[in-house]
């Protein structure tokens, strides 16, 4: 598991537990660090010291937490700084629960994310026995190609989405006319032909299915509309309600110089309130990435 690049601050790790440590685990630990203080693995020695059971080594808990960082944040985690306080005793055979969260994003680059995390161990009575703070460096997810399978899954090629209903308000048309440079919008009830392009759920952000592309840890070098084609049967009029159904029909990659171009092609069917089709559009959007060289054919489906 790797954290998404955004929204890491406050990210809460999945609780691990109950964990119960055995005498054998403590003996193994003793052998690993040459700490043969016997109240960690001998019940009688622990009782002689006033403990109800053998006491779990503090550094054993540190080692557990340090390794859980790999479970929580992924295997590419470097622990830069780790401090731990043993606030209370944990006993062999008794429940422990490990919880943690990100408390600060120290830095966030394309390659690495540096985080401060806080991890606590609580016992079966929900008392915090151990508290650790650490600074870790997490290598950002490395991908070298556009995840087409994921893209095709979200685009659902051939499956209509909508309808999205838009009322052509006079004020919208006037604003649109000004934006496209029409200095003296007429009082005509017919709207400019190019207004068909404004009736697009994607452009209006009413339909957002592939936003993840913008979050990919890939170098993006451009993007925008690749083409728009509208075939209309009659002009639109102000006051009309137009239903728009969007269908993604294609997605493909092309290589252009050192850029990899990702095209997504969609078609919009526009119908009036009677359900009669008034226009059909085909639109292509492109995102350009600087990826490692693409082998094989020019176009990859």
């Amino acid at each position, binding site marked *: 598991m790797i954290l998404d690049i955004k929204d890491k601050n406050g990210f809460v790790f999945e609780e*691990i537990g109950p*964990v*119960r*440590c*055995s005498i*054998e*685990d*403590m003996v*193994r*630990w003793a*052998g*690993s*660090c*040459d*700490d043969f203080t016997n109240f960690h693995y001998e019940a009688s020695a622990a009782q002689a010291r*006033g403990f109800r059971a053998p006491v779990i*080594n*503090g*550094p*054993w808990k*540190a*080692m*557990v937490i*340090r*390794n*859980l960082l*790999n*479970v929580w944040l992924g*295997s590419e985690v*470097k*622990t*830069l*700084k*780790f*401090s*731990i*306080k*043993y606030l209370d005793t944990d006993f062999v055979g008794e429940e422990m629960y490990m919880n943690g969260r990100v408390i600060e994003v120290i830095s966030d680059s394309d390659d690495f994310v540096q985080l401060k995390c806080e991890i606590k161990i609580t016992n079966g009575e929900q008392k915090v026995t151990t508290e650790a703070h650490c600074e870790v460096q997490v290598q950002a997810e490395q991908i070298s190609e556009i995840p087409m399978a994921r893209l095709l899954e979200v685009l659902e090629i051939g499956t209509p989405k909508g309808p999205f209903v838009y009322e052509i308000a006079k004020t919208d048309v006037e604003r649109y006319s000004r934006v496209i440079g029409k200095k003296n919008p007429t009082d005509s009830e017919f709207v400019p032909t190019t207004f068909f392009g404004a009736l697009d759920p994607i452009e209006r952000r009413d339909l957002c299915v592939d936003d993840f592309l913008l979050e990919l840890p890939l170098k993006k070098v451009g993007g925008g509309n690749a083409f728009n084609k509208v075939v209309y049967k009659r002009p639109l009029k102000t006051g009309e309600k137009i239903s728009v159904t969007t269908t993604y029909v294609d997605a493909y990659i092309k290589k252009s110089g050192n850029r990899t171009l990702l095209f997504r092609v969609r078609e919009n069917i526009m119908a009036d309130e009677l359900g009669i089709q008034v226009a059909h559009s085909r639109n292509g959007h492109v995102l350009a990435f600087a990826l490692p060289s693409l082998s094989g054919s020019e176009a990859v489906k």
Partner: protein
Amino acid sequence: MEQNHQAWHSLDSAEAANLLASVGTVKYVSANTHKTSLAWSSISRPVHELQVQPPVDLFLICPDPLIFALSCGLPRSRTLDKQIDGGSEWEQFHDIPSTPLTAISRIASIQERRTSDMRHMIRSIYEIEFRNSEGKLIGIARGTSLDFEVATGEKQ
């Protein structure tokens, strides 16, 4: 000026000054496969989520800084009733090299304070520096020993 007994402050004695100057026996250490395997099995047996053993880092070189420092011959304050491990710290600045590291341990601080019920407590911090063959500081581990007076009712 009234002194805040509950805040840590340096232990002001000749004995403490001597201890602060103490440097442990220098050790040359590297990851011991057998010990690393023992440490990993001791945590991965009870914590089932731990499935992939990580590469060697300072934790595996020095899993218990306090025990490590004491094994280098540094003394531990045992003037009061009970001694416990108060915490540990690891800082790693560079990857662990394949060649052995030089470990130099010392007592970095000795401080005392009174608890809220006025029991005496002494805190000793042991610091171990790990350097590569070129003298470059690879990491630091710290262990804390607490020596404290137990409540009258707890004394045996």
